[in-house]
């Protein structure tokens, strides 16, 4: 349990960052899809640019994790159908609820009980995907 605390703390940091950047705001997501502000693009863009630089450095210098194991990066499975179709379905839901999976839970913590219904929906969606998986193009 004690070693699990680090993940709780990282999660708390994530929840605060999502809240304070207002990435959890339905209004901000609408603003993003209407191209009315740079905020969300700057947020994701700067995270990715810094991410690209640091991941490159981690690889370049074979940095090890805290257990002394070199940090490795597994490539995503090749293909495009599942990414394009699944991604688009995800996007429909992202715009509608104004929240991706992380923020859904952050908002529950912020005291929005209706998020329980979003979570129930998300779990059903995940379950139905599992059920239909073999019949969908990947």
């Amino acid at each position, binding site marked *: 349990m004690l070693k699990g605390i680090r993940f709780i703390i990282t999660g708390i940091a994530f929840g605060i960052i999502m809240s304070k950047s207002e990435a959890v705001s339905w209004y901000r997501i609408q603003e993003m899809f209407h191209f009315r502000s740079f905020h969300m693009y700057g947020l994701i863009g700067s995270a990715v640019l810094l991410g690209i630089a640091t991941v490159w450095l981690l690889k370049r210098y074979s940095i090890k994790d805290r257990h002394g194991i070199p940090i490795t990066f597994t490539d995503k499975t090749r293909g495009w159908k599942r990414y394009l179709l699944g991604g688009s379905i995800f*996007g429909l839901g992202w715009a509608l*609820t104004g929240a991706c999976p992380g923020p859904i839970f952050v908002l529950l913590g912020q005291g929005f009980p209706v998020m329980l219904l979003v979570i129930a929906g998300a779990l059903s969606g995940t379950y139905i995907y599992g059920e239909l998986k073999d019949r969908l193009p990947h």
Partner: protein
Amino acid sequence: MTMLRYLSQPWPWYIAGPAITAVMLALLYSGKTFGFSSNLRTICSIAGAGKKVPFFQFDYKKQYWNLLFLLGAIIGGFISQQWLTPPGQLQLSAGAIRDLQALGIPFDGQLLPEQLFGTQALLSVRGWIMLAGGGFLVGFGSRYAGGCTSGHAITGLSMLQWPSLIAVTGFFIGGLIMTYLFFPLIF
């Protein structure tokens, strides 16, 4: 006190963006990968979905760390709401306020529109479409695409993965279709 007041201000993207990268790096340093939607699969497995559907038969104990991360995210939301909420309204751009006004959603200055996320939303068909339906699309789509904003947009793009770029393109295709085609029908 001044520190708390300082942190309570909305964070600009150039602070919050790099902070998200730091979360990804902290998890990498712990030997884990940042990907939030995997938790939905884990919760299904714990609830016994594996008895019926093979997709949910996996060693979910290895994902417990991610559930702790999820728990932390909930606590982080609580802390922000309790102690880090700035006085005053959300600073939404005038353009977005006009766009939403045109859909019949007046901007109320809150983080989320009260008319859509208050408990009274549960009494309307539109509320169920938005909350349960939207949640369903998020859950189905993220698993189909093999990741969500954290797994693809942040982690995947940082690793320069083509599949993630396709997925993120999909996120925007879906988001724009919802915004421009379906919103006028729903609202």
